[in-house]
């Protein structure tokens, strides 16, 4: 693997068998991704394009059908840790035990894990909520804890699977700004999956646009917006130009889907 890279994916391909029909389906195909150390990279793409599948492969939840993924190994900490969608905190653990969970999984004794989790709880501004159970926290706070849990194991690369998808619009904006602050302090490489174009642009150094199934990387767009970024940046012409560019790419992928989306209830209407 090249020096200075945190992650290198080559020719990743994922096939699976549809349980209902028995057909073989190609979920993602020929995915090549390089992520430099410390970079914040997002993948956006239409529904069902395989971006979450890719993330799960990187996370080792299941193996790819073909291809290689290399992640830089550091002497301390682990290669990767995942921030899951909505409430993946264990409802039966309080916040400090949830945040310490990754360390406990590595065999660290519980007391020590709790002690080592504390700085991360402070970092995500949850000080004082250590003894609360997840149901006692708002959705935004739960996702802060989720983020802290992933950071506790000191991963080389942080994988985030639509972490703010379940939050309301206002909380989501605040959490995006918070994430940038934390990213800045924790100094991590991030691979971020989202379906929100503005979220991807706002957060990232690079936005990768994925095609409809089978998922391929359509474009690799470097976001040249100065950091630190304030939320107001979303109203600048440069930002809007990026959004138009990405939306243009994605809408070409959506067209064949519009009709069958509208046909079944629960599918969103895409204007």
């Amino acid at each position: 693997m090249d020096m200075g890279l945190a992650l290198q994916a080559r020719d990743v391909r994922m096939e699976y068998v549809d349980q209902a029909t028995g057909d073989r389906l190609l979920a993602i195909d020929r995915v090549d991704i390089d992520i430099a150390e410390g970079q914040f990279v997002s993948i956006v793409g239409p529904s069902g394009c395989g971006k979450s599948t890719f993330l799960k492969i990187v996370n080792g939840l299941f193996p790819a059908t073909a291809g290689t993924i290399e992640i830089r190994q550091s002497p301390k900490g682990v290669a990767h840790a995942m921030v899951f969608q909505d409430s993946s905190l264990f409802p039966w653990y309080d916040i400090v035990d949830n945040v310490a969970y990754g360390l406990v999984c590595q065999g660290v004794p519980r007391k020590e894990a709790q002690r080592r989790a504390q700085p991360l709880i402070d970092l995500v501004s949850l000080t004082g909520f250590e003894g609360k159970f997840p149901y006692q926290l708002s959705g935004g706070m739960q996702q802060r804890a989720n983020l802290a849990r992933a950071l506790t194991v000191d991963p080389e690369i942080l994988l985030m699977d639509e972490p703010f998808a379940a939050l309301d619009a206002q909380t989501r904006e605040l959490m995006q700004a918070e994430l940038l602050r934390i990213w800045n302090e924790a100094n991590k490489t991030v691979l971020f999956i989202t379906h929100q174009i503005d979220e991807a642009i706002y957060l990232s150094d690079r936005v990768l646009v994925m095609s409809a199934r089978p998922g391929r990387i359509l474009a690799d767009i470097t976001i040249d917006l100065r950091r630190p970024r304030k939320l107001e940046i979303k109203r600048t012409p440069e930002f809007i130009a990026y959004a138009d560019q990405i939306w243009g790419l994605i809408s070409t992928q959506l067209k064949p889907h519009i009709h069958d989306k509208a046909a079944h209830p629960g599918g969103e209407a895409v204007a």
Partner: protein
Amino acid sequence: MTVASPDLTRTRSQHPDGSRRIRVPGIPERLKYGLLGFLVVLPLWEAVVRLGLVKRVTLSSPSLILEAAWEDLIINGTLWPHIFQSSQQFFLGLGLALITGVPLGLALGLFRRLNYFLDPWLSAIYATPTIALVPLIILILGLGLESKVFIVWLEAIFVIVVTTMVGVRAAEARYLDLAKSFRASRWLTFRSVILPSSFPYILTALRLGVTRALVGVVVAEFFAANKGLGFFINFSGTTLRTDRVMLGVILLGLLGVVLGEGVRRIERRYEKWRPEFR
């Protein structure tokens, strides 16, 4: 102006990348291991008895039970009157429990004050193993059909009342609000919201009632009968004919499985609303 970026993926876990990869259990495998269980247990049972490790009279054996079934069900048919008698008590008792229990459960769910009024008694009886009343019931109603039907009724009714009541209470507030906002009458609200949403609970009540009613049949016939499967089991036990005891027990078990499965079939059509307790 903020760019409103459209939500591209809102449907969760409908697509391959979001969906769980739970292996659907193959029916052959389920069948294979299910049969394996039988193929291990039955010969082992037979062998243990044949080899004299356990006395015939304590455990009987599959072949002896089959033999008994052949004789009593086919050759001389002596079991049929017992089965008929038990079925009669079962259906009469359960039927009465439904006729009385469902309306009472609906009423208790609908009328708060009636509920408060009866709650202490219901809770007390619900916590009581009502079989403790069997000797008194037999003393009061005698050894005829009445006492047995009453025992079956008593065993089955409370679980029906309570489950139906919970069903009425579980009618979702938003549907009730909807009915209210359209100024639906009490009767219309009952018919259009409460009854349909408590229906799955009534089915569950029926399934639970079936189990309880079977217990009632057995107990009633243990203590107050000269006919019926319970009597057959008890009588065979006191005369140390274990094969007959086992046969009676197996018939009861099959009856339970068949009836339970029947109700469950209907229930499955209302899977969505099925209450979580059993």
